[in-house]
């Protein structure tokens, strides 16, 4: 069991998964979400090959309406 901090909430994962796997498990479309892992912005191709380590801090960001 590993614990990560995603968008300010702690979240337990029952196995190591990639950023992309987490996005999909959360019901998100990886094409429209930006990921910042431990302060570093990931490029789109990195989502599938970047594992989430225990204690990782992940921010998932996307566009919303704004002026």
């Amino acid at each position, binding site marked *: 069991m590993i614990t990560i901090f995603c*968008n300010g909430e702690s979240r337990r994962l029952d196995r190591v998964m990639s950023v992309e796997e987490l996005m999909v498990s*959360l019901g998100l479309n990886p094409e429209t979400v*930006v990921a910042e892992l431990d302060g570093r912005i990931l490029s789109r191709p990195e989502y599938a090959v970047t594992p989430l380590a225990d204690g990782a801090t992940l921010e998932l*960001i*996307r566009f919303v309406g*704004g*002026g």
Partner: protein
Amino acid sequence: MLTIAGKTFRSRLFTGTGKFSSPRVMKEALLASGSEMVTVALRRVDLHDPADDIMAVLDRDRFFFLPNTAGARNAAEAVRLAKLARASGGGNWVKLEVTPDPRTLLPDPVETLAATEELVKAGFVVLPYMNADPILALRLQDAGAAAVMPLGSPIGTNQGVLTRFQVAIIIEQARVPVVVDAGIGAPSHAAEAMEMGADAVLVNTAIAVAGDPVRMAQAFAKAVEAGREAYEAGLGARRTEAEASSPQTGLDFLR
């Protein structure tokens, strides 16, 4: 045609995407506005509402995205947001907003200039939201801003172009396009800015919160076109004394 950083726009009305009652109304209003460039913001995904995705309704082939840095209170936060926007595949354009005071949402000139310099160096096309300060506009232009976006009045106030005197100087001096942003609350305000020679206006609240946002978007589109046409046609000079429109001769028979 308006050109900013080599990209041309037929419409001089830029539209914000915030505050609409639904994604469907937003999309219809944006289409009715004729806008080719729309602003968007960046926020944390709401993990309890993963389907709430603006990209599901906005066609990026139809609308050019101008991500903003709204919510940033200093240059570092704005730069971080800009880099996140670029990573999203949203291109390298950014509407730079640095507003430390949530009560007034007035832009911080020092942090805005610092962030402009940093983002230009990092390869961004930067359109800074700024107070209507003619000297600051020159400084931002010299720092490499692709356009300047002076405020008409504070964001969301619908008060119109209260900064008319300063905006006129900015327009007169600018070598980059001037986009009047914020506070444009009615089509007449948009027309006023365009008559003054603004290159474009950015409107959000006035359309989004209108009784009928789609019709209001059409009204703004007409006002922007009318204002631009009047500017190009050349307005008559303002005078303090009356000048008769009818001939002052040929009245001898009356007296």
